């Protein structure tokens, strides 16, 4: 029997504002709207993003060592501090705590700013790595355990959360800070425009007229803790990370494997790992990006696993509310799942203009619905066909 992993702290900076409370309140009122990236040199057809409001983007820390920090790492620092405070972790608990973060573009904004300014670089000077986010977050909370950055693209922080949970299950750590963070990126937006995968209106997963995704930025952080440790110090968990599983399509660079065999396997293996079954899942936070193929294949995968119950199994259309936060998306999904379980409720998602019949899922759009049973499936997928599914449940009483 592997060790149980609880979620005992949350932190977030999102397009809905700074802090977990604003994130939840933002979900209750239907989420944010995309705006053009404020970059006059973002020469592309659709420069839309769901951006963290300017006053919610921290100005510090400006540097980590010699590396200037852009919005992504700075937001990670703020979210990490909130999560650690939320879990009531004093310094004695952080000293050996690992930090595992899912980061794809990381500090890209600073590299892009330097290129746009034409600032010359010193070829013999110190290297400016792209992925300093986990290091900046660890320094901020004085975490001195392993410091790992996972780069599985849009599934990165889903993998990071599960790597962190494996550390606890394997007895390497009692507490791990896990999450993801991304800032705005001109290159990311540009390439998605080039690939015809950027929707010019909004992020509209599962809508018949969806034309691609719209990126968002922000950071979501979770404190994961062994049940024994949480019990010893009297921590009150939001939820339990009961199970998770990985798979890989090994099919195509950008398109999901159309039969969804591996996506289905990840979901089923996650349910098995959690010791539960499809009938005991009360809601789903899908990957749901708004790209035509992803949403259709994911809908098919969900129907394969949940059957006709899909007609009454509520989905939270999270990316329609905060955009596709790329490497941070899986962590935002887990954070939202923990809040759904805390509140026993699934907020209404933005109204679909025209639900896609190729995506036969149920997305409550008129009002919140009760979450029953109190357990949520979270999916995170990525280019290249890397899949991770996680099952977040109500924390069970210690045996």
């Amino acid at each position, binding site marked *: 029997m592997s060790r149980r992993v609880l979620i005992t702290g949350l932190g977030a900076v999102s397009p809905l504002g700074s802090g977990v409370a604003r994130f939840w309140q933002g979900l209750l009122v239907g989420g944010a709207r995309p705006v053009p990236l404020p970059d006059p040199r973002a*020469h592309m057809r659709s420069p839309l993003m769901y951006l963290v409001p300017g006053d919610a983007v921290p100005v510090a820390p400006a540097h980590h060592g010699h590396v200037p920090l852009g919005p992504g790492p700075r937001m990670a620092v703020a979210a990490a501090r909130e999560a650690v405070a939320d879990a009531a972790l004093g310094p004695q608990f952080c000293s050996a705590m690992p930090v595992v973060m899912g980061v794809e573009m990381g500090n890209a904004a600073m590299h892009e700013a330097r*290129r746009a300014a034409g600032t010359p670089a010193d070829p013999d000077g110190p*290297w400016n*790595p*792209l992925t300093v986010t986990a290091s900046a977050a660890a320094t901020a909370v004085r975490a001195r355990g392993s410091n790992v950055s996972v*780069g599985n693209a849009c599934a990165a922080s889903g993998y990071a959360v599960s790597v962190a949970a494996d550390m606890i299950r394997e007895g390497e750590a009692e507490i791990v800070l896990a999450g993801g963070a991304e800032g705005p990126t001109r290159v990311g937006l540009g390439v998605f425009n080039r690939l015809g995968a950027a929707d010019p209106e909004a992020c509209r997963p599962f809508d018949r007229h969806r034309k691609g995704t719209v990126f968002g930025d922000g950071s979501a952080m979770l404190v994961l803790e062994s049940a024994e440790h949480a019990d010893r110090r009297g921590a009150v968990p939001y939820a339990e990370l009961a199970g998770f599983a990985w798979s*890989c399509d090994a099919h195509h*660079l950008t398109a999901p494997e159309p039969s969804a065999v591996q996506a289905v396997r990840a979901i089923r293996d996650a349910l098995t790992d959690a010791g539960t079954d499809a009938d005991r899942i009360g809601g789903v936070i899908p990957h749901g990006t708004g790209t035509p193929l992803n949403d259709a294949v994911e809908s098919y995968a969900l129907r394969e696993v949940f059957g006709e119950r899909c007609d009454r199994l509520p989905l939270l259309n999270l990316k329609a509310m905060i955009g596709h936060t790329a490497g941070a998306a899986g962590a935002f999904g887990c954070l939202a799942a923990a809040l759904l379980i805390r509140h026993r409720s699934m907020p209404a998602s933005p109204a679909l203009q025209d639900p896609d019949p190729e995506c036969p899922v149920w997305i409550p759009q008129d009002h919140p619905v009760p979450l029953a049973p109190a357990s949520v499936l979270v999916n995170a997928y990525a280019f290249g066909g890397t899949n991770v599914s996680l099952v977040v449940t109500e924390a069970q009483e210690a045996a």
Partner: protein
Amino acid sequence: MSELVVTGLGITCPGVAKPSDAAAPRQEPSPGWFDVSCALPGRGYKRLPAACQYLLAAARNALADADAPFDGVPDERRGLVVATNNAAMELTEHQDGVILASSADEIGPLTAPFFVLSLFASRLATEHGVRGFCLTANSPRTAGLQALRLAGRALACGRADLLLVGVTEERLPESEPGSSHSDCGAAVLVCGPAASTAAETAYGDCRIGDVFLEPGGEPDPALTRAWNVVCAGAPGPVLVDAVLDDSAIGGAVASWLARRPVETRMVRAGAGCLTPMRHVVGALAGGGPERVVITAAAEGAVTMARVRPARHAGEQTISHRTMSARS
């Protein structure tokens, strides 16, 4: 702490002919040093980013070296962990330049998706039918050694029966700071769990530990704890390859090593996470005494790998290479 047993090695680096030379000093890549049509004959390779080509070629060599170990392993029991820091930096700089100068519509379509770092691993997964999992690590400098730890943990958790662990890097573009000392090339290891891998076919095993140092803080206790964990159960290696830069963190690790009863070979760290893994490959293939490879990022992460080569590893490398040449 989980251990990995290594049964195959492959390397594609400028000036390196075989795995036992992997720890040789880093050479600048000369024009044409890598011949893609020779290393990767067939269709579909020439237009891939260079770091993807390096990775695919090194994986081919590693799998051949291990005598096609995936043949008896179902797709869904194969795993892959790839580490990289700079595989896509040159490409993304070019893409950004196109956006700045004209329009995103002018970005080259074939390589466009490779701005996503994990696609280098995904392309390798597709090449070899790896459907268990495909993980990418991108921690500055330490990602290569961390990939070994991620792989060992995944095996311990039952996520695969056999896996590839790789590192791939491309030189930084000249517009990036630190470009004059950046890693280039790839290394791949075929790895299995210690319990189920026949010792007579192995190069040896690895055990990984890591810590995070506070800039300006007192590093000794944390480094000593990590060392004790990594080197537990044995007298401990006295040979250390230290891949460090001249940052405060690198200096702190160097000072700590200077106070230990070890013989340290200092190696100048460049931009990227390949050089530490080259030293792991070199130690395994060389079949010499046990050693620790340690590296540190200026940002604070420190990772160490205890490498225990099998006594016959050097001979095995020769025999495998002979077989590959015959085929």
